[in-house]
């Protein structure tokens, strides 16, 4: 079949890329080979637009066992325990078929974790939808939440934390990022690097169908009016089979049969076989007629590009086939030797003994294009705010507007659809700063949180990138965990657009700076480009998933006020930065201006000292201050608690609105026993930490002296109204 320009374009490849392929092969590729290049060279698999910038991120540290480059990142949490985690996007499929798109997103990220030998112990998600009034939003929200729950609950892994946000920027391009965290023994981590010649390449799991053929290309293409036609490429998830696959793999991993293992995700058999061979600098030969198929007459092209779910590729030690097959038979899963490793350094595809395609591995992997796309820096902007206008609104009304808004309303409507308790190790569930999951059978636990700040990133990408790493870090500190490392999902628009590429480059600069300063390296992640429709791109949305360690567990430190008559303190200085605040957006529809400045020194200092105070048992409750400012954070501590607080107006009064609604960073609210005040103040003073004693706790009411008084029950009602009426 003659490869025409049209065929090349339909495969998502540019003409220059096709010319490059011809040069590397020293001939024209056939259709099968073209398909394989299209899968390996698209953005999702090759990271061609992002690799140059991703290289800048800090990925190392004493706590890092494995950084980016494997199926997931691995960190050391002491006593030969390791945590394996990663976040991934499934944006485009979820827009097309929300239930299955979200479900298969969860399935995919779980495989990335257990393929490394870790039993998954927690799921998190960061999901973003368009404006609630947008006609598609409701059904997308329902579908995605059902899909996440449907998959996670069935496989029996608790979904313990997440965030759900609404913004018109996602109207035509929702974001569904799924994160999985698993526990493994340090000396039993499995990697995907192929080793040894003539080793068996084994296919395990579900049969191969025609699902998702060219899904990897779809993820790399913007939507247009014809997006509806792209429908047939969405896969259906089977969490039951994945549960069997997970148990079978974990069972096989108990001994030394596995040389290397990789899950079949985007671009299925193609990406898994090529990546394993590439890492091992070997060749791989596959006999495609051996691939278990669930449809009749599947062609080699279809088999190589199928994205049927719940499948793994294993390279097995000699003599281990029989015992390994017994395990997979027990779990009723297919187990077939479909090929072997070779020393040719080629991907050789045979079908009924005839060679249908042969490509040098490095042409697909290491020689895949890397682009240095042009980009421009974002210019700082200023919001036109007339301070006098602000006083047109009562503080109480502004507060209610925020607490009852879709973005700040209680998400129990969503989280109650996820089983958070299965596996019986969830010490702190969602609805808190970070979830806490115990390491099974041990006295220690991890804290996990996932966060994003698209508005900040849009207005000033470097600051936004810095800020979101800090916020994630603070969320772990505030529950008493030492932040160890992050995974990031970088959701952006079209990288061929200079401004978008600039957002990417600058956000990464900010992320890099914060991660380096805080010793909070990036161990895994995912890039999702082309989140745009008809040239309208989404706000830059880097999502940060962080993991921290609580060495010795005790009753969890929550953000709810613990008792009455204790002292409420604010750690960190309030400058009253009101630009880019939720207050301005919700009450005045103003969304321009600069985000608050991020002072990394204060972030580190304030957080480390707070952790010290927590470890000394001096903190009754703790909460970080982020979107919505001080007053919103205080109310969050009151809602759901029997106790509220009585807060004084600031002594140096410039503007009440700026003080209570400003979103200055590096701040925490803490509650301490009155008799511990001298001790705590001494620690703060000795470490040059700015703090204010802002009030005391009291039963039932939240009060700003002389300004407002509202009962916790009323706050609860206001905060729980929106979802129930949506």
């Amino acid at each position: 079949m003659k490869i025409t320009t049209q065929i090349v374009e339909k495969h998502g490849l540019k003409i220059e890329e096709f010319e490059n392929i011809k040069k590397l092969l020293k001939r024209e590729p056939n259709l099968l080979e073209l398909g394989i290049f299209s899968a390996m060279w698209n953005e999702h698999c090759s990271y061609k637009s992002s690799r140059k910038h991703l290289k800048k991120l800090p990925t190392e540290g004493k706590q890092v066992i494995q950084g980016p480059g494997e199926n997931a990142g691995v960190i050391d949490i002491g006593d030969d325990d390791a945590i394996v985690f990663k976040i991934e996007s499934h944006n485009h499929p979820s827009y097309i078929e929300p239930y299955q798109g979200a479900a298969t997103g969860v399935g995919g990220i779980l495989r990335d974790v257990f393929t490394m030998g870790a039993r998954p112990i927690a799921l998190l998600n960061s999901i973003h939808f368009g404006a609630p009034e947008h006609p598609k939003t409701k059904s997308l929200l329902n579908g995605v939440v059902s899909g996440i729950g449907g998959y996670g609950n069935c496989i029996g892994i608790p979904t313990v934390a997440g965030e759900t946000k609404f913004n018109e920027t996602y109207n035509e391009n929702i974001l569904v990022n799924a994160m999985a965290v698993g526990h493994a023994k340090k000396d039993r981590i499995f990697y995907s690097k192929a080793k040894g010649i003539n080793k068996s390449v084994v296919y395990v799991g579900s049969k191969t169908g025609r699902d998702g053929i060219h899904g990897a290309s779809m993820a790399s293409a913007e939507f247009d009016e014809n997006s509806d036609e792209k429908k047939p490429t969405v896969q259906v998830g089977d969490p039951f089979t994945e549960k069997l696959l997970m148990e079978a793999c974990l069972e096989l991993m108990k001994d030394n049969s596995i040389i290397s293992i990789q899950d079949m995700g985007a671009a299925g058999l193609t990406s898994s076989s090529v990546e394993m061979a590439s890492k091992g600098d070997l060749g791989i030969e596959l006999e495609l007629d051996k691939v278990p198929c669930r449809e009749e007459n599947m062609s080699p092209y279809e088999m190589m590009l199928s994205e049927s779910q719940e499948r793994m590729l294993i390279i097995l030690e000699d003599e281990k086939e029989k015992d390994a097959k017994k395990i997979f038979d027990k779990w009723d899963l297919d187990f077939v030797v479909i090929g072997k490793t070779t020393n040719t350094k080629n991907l050789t595809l045979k079908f009924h003994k005839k060679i249908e395609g042969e490509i040098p591995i490095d042409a697909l992997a290491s020689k895949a294009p890397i682009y240095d796309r042009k980009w421009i820096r974002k210019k700082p902007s200023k919001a036109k705010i007339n301070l006098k206008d602000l006083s047109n609104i009562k503080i109480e009304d502004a507060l209610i507007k925020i607490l009852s808004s879709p973005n700040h309303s209680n998400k129990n409507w969503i989280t109650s659809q996820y089983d958070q308790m299965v596996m019986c190790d969830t010490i702190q569930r969602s609805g808190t700063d970070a979830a806490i999951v115990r390491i099974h059978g041990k006295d220690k636990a991890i804290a996990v949180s996932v966060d994003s700040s698209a508005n900040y990133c849009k207005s000033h990408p470097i600051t936004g990138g810095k800020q979101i790493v800090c916020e994630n870090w603070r969320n772990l500190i505030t529950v008493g965990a030492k932040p160890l490392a992050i995974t990031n999902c970088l959701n952006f628009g079209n990288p061929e657009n200079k401004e978008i590429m600039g957002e990417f480059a600058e956000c990464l600069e900010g992320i890099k700076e914060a991660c380096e300063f805080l010793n909070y390296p990036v161990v895994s992640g995912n890039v999702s480009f082309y989140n745009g429709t008809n040239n309208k791109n989404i706000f830059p949305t880097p999502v940060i998933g962080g993991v921290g360690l609580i060495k010795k567990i005790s009753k969890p430190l929550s953000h709810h006020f613990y008792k009455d008559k204790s002292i409420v303190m604010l750690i960190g200085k309030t400058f009253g930065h009101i630009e880019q605040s939720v207050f301005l957006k919700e009450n005045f529809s103003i969304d321009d201006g600069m985000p608050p400045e991020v002072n990394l020194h204060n972030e580190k200092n304030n957080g480390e000292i707070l952790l010290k105070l927590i470890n000394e048992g001096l903190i009754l409750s703790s909460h970080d201050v982020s979107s919505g400012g001080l007053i919103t954070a205080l109310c969050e501590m009151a809602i759901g608690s029997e106790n509220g607080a009585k807060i004084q107006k600031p002594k140096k009064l410039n503007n009440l609105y700026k003080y209570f609604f400003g979103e200055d960073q590096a701040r925490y609210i803490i509650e301490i026993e009155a008799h511990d005040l001298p001790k705590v103040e001494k620690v703060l003073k000795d470490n040059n930490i700015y703090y204010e004693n802002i009030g005391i706790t009291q039963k039932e009411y939240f009060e700003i002296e002389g300004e407002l008084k509202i009962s916790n029950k009323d706050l609860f009602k206001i905060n729980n109204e929106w979802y129930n009426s949506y």
Partner: protein
Amino acid sequence: MKFSVTVTLKKDVLDPQGKVVKNTLVNMGINNLKSIRQGKNFEIEIDEKDQLLAEKKIDEMCKKLLVNLIIEDYKISKIL
């Protein structure tokens, strides 16, 4: 008029339920079973005397709500 709408998964779409049900029946001794696909059935009674108009309405209902056109097919038949 009464109609029956049978909704099935599209040909190439994975049917996890059908697969497990088939395996279970095979394990129960039914051994010449080739495949099972699970779907659903709607019985719809509509107040419309003209059959063509009625079918058009049912078709609209399918497209708008009853059927997930992304992964399902459907067949409308009149119940006598």
